[in-house]
């Protein structure tokens, strides 16, 4: 159920107009948007889980609960907001998963009860509805734990009751989202276990995301990850994505056939078959009807059409296989796409080039503003840099090329910086240099101070890289035959050997490891964790007083990247 940019006539237009009332169709659109936004944030919410218990994926649980709510809402033709709210509550209840899902269903239940049979929702109705939702949710537990979704929902409801602004629902929602954000941010102070884990409450965050999705819809902002990551003006929903949505809900069979008869009732067939599945397309006349539908059970469709007339050209296809291909293709596409993270507007942001998933994660965890995939054999283009710089909500950007071959493209991007943006390249030639530089980065400081601190940090790190020679070469006094293992010290060929270990020993010695404190080992995408651990053990034996850290780098071509500091 991928959602594109949504703007629809059932809501008064965003912008200068004021939104004073929402009818049933309007609420439906809000739910659709919040569902899409929740889906976009699902993994991020899952990552906040503290308890390593099964079914503990809050993001997934809340998403499944809302999907069930949407399925129910989608079916109802109701125009009254009260009826739509009841459908949401019913769907959420039937599909509630996990703790957070059950609480969410209770919030909707109280919300729906408060709206009763109202035709539209106005500012005056919103506060009591949110209050009732919160109170209903609190009744479901003997000892409510504060610092959870319950707290966030209650504080948002209280903020709504205290709201004295004007009656524009979009403006109210904007204030509530701001309040919800504060409330979520405060959860670690209320719940020690969150503080220990260094996260905010996942359920509270999920609730906030639902409100945010609604607000984004009202502001005409995109609600899908694809739309945001690529910042495309509008994402087209491809057929593959619709199919994928259906498959993920269990409607895995694509059924097509022609029904031939004398007096076929197309409308009736359309209604009956639509009820069996999703993405139904039934067209024709009294003599011939073409049927296409995605269902869970294709036999039911055939049983039905057999009663209507003679069936021709029947086919079924299991879309699960297609879906796998689609998911694989999508993840590949995502892996090669630039990624933008949250950046405080106006603060200095960094753009790091990362070869491989693991290294992307490392940079992300260190707070880079954006990641451009690339490295030795897949140099990112100047254009790619300019694209992400354009998207970052700041005018001060630092680029970490992290490869000798990428420095030039980054430099060009700096020269071509769009008007009003200031780009500076910190010429890191290796990934460890980039990581050291990023560690020295301070978003609140000035561009100049950052450049100085980061260059200094990068300068103090030694990098060794292990790969194979692609041709016979003699360089820096090192003679290498094609296919042999080679080591690069700070991006320069410095040693070669018959085994990876030989090269590692050579490099570590050249890196002056004996006088350093920490060795970090980033292993590449062709190396198993166990192999890396065995190597780390061997290094530990040889350098017992140094600390060794193993990190999954996932970089291609380089078996290992080593750094010492």
């Amino acid at each position, binding site marked *: 159920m991928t959602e594109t940019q949504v703007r629809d006539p059932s809501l008064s237009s965003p912008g200068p107009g004021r939104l004073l009332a929402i009818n049933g169709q309007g609420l439906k659109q809000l739910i659709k948007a919040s569902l899409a936004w929740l889906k976009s944030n699902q993994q991020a919410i899952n990552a906040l889980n503290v308890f390593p218990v*099964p079914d503990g994926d809050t993001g997934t649980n809340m998403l499944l609960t809302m999907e069930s709510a949407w399925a129910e809402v989608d079916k109802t033709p109701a125009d009254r907001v009260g009826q739509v709210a009841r459908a949401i509550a019913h769907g959420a*209840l039937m*599909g*509630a998963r996990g*703790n957070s899902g059950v609480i969410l*269903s209770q919030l909707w*239940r109280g919300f729906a009860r408060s709206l009763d049979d109202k035709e539209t929702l106005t500012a005056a109705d919103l506060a009591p509805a949110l209050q009732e939702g919160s109170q209903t949710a609190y009744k479901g537990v003997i000892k409510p734990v504060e610092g959870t979704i319950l707290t966030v929902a209650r504080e948002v409801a209280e903020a709504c009751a205290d709201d004295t602004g004007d009656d524009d629902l979009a403006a109210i929602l904007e204030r509530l989202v701001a309040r919800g954000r504060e409330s979520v941010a405060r959860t670690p102070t209320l719940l020690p276990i969150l503080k220990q884990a260094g996260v905010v409450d996942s359920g509270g965050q999920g609730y906030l995301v639902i409100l945010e999705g609604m607000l984004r819809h009202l502001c005409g902002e995109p609600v899908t990850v694809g739309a945001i990551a690529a910042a495309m003006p509008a994402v087209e929903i491809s057929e593959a994505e619709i199919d994928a949505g259906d498959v993920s809900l269990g409607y895995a069979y694509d059924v097509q056939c022609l029904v031939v008869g004398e007096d076929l009732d197309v409308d009736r067939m359309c209604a009956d078959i639509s009820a069996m599945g999703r993405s139904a397309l039934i067209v024709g006349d009294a003599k011939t009807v073409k049927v296409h539908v995605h269902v869970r059970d294709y036999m039911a469709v055939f049983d039905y059409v057999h009663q209507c007339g003679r069936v021709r050209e029947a086919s079924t296809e299991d879309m699960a296989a297609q879906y796998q291909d689609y998911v694989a293709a999508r993840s590949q596409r995502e892996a090669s796409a630039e990624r933008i993270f949250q950046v405080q507007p106006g603060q200095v942001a960094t753009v790091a080039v990362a070869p491989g998933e693991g290294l992307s994660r490392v940079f992300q965890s260190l707070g880079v503003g954006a990641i451009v995939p690339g490295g030795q054999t897949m140099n990112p283009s100047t254009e790619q840099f300019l694209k992400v710089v354009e998207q970052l909500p700041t005018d001060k950007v630092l680029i970490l090329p992290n490869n000798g071959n990428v420095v030039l493209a980054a430099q060009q991007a700096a020269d071509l910086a769009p008007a009003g943006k200031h780009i500076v390249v910190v010429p890191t030639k290796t990934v460890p240099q980039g990581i050291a530089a990023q560690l020295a980065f301070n978003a609140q400081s000035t561009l100049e101070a950052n450049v100085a601190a980061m260059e200094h940090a990068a300068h103090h790190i030694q990098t060794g890289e292990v790969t194979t020679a692609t041709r016979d070469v003699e360089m820096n006094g090192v003679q290498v035959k094609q296919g042999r293992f080679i080591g690069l010290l700070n991006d320069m060929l410095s040693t070669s050997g018959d085994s990876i270990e030989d090269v590692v020993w050579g490099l570590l010695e050249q890196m002056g490891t004996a006088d350093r404190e920490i060795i970090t080992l980033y292993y590449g995408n062709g190396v198993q964790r166990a192999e890396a651990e065995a190597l780390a053990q061997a290094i530990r034996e040889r350098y017992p007083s140094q600390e060794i850290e193993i990190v999954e780098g996932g970089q291609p071509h380089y078996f290992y990247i080593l750094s010492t500091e």
Partner: protein
Amino acid sequence: MSEETQLGKIEISPTAIATITAQAVLQSYGVVGMAPKHLGDELMTALGDAAHRGVQVRVDGDHIQIDLYVVVEYGTRISSVAHSIMNVVRYNVERALGVQVAQVNVHVQGLHVSNSDV
């Protein structure tokens, strides 16, 4: 259950396990009360330890089985509530004691209606 160490023996009584369990259950969303297993037990549990009402712990060697008798809020998805209880009880007991819990059985003894619904 007990564990021998060099310094001596550690023994954990079923009552201790029941206390940990009861605390976890009371914070489980959807549970609004604990119920005695049989009506006849009411008097006994009322006189006995209120903290362990509706919790029964059986320990056989290393095998821990926990039975819970709960009252659930009307209008919640009961299977989800029950699953959450199982998870949270298992997690809390295993984290506190460092031993595996073999079984957590949830018996929903009744529903409590605190919201008359639409």
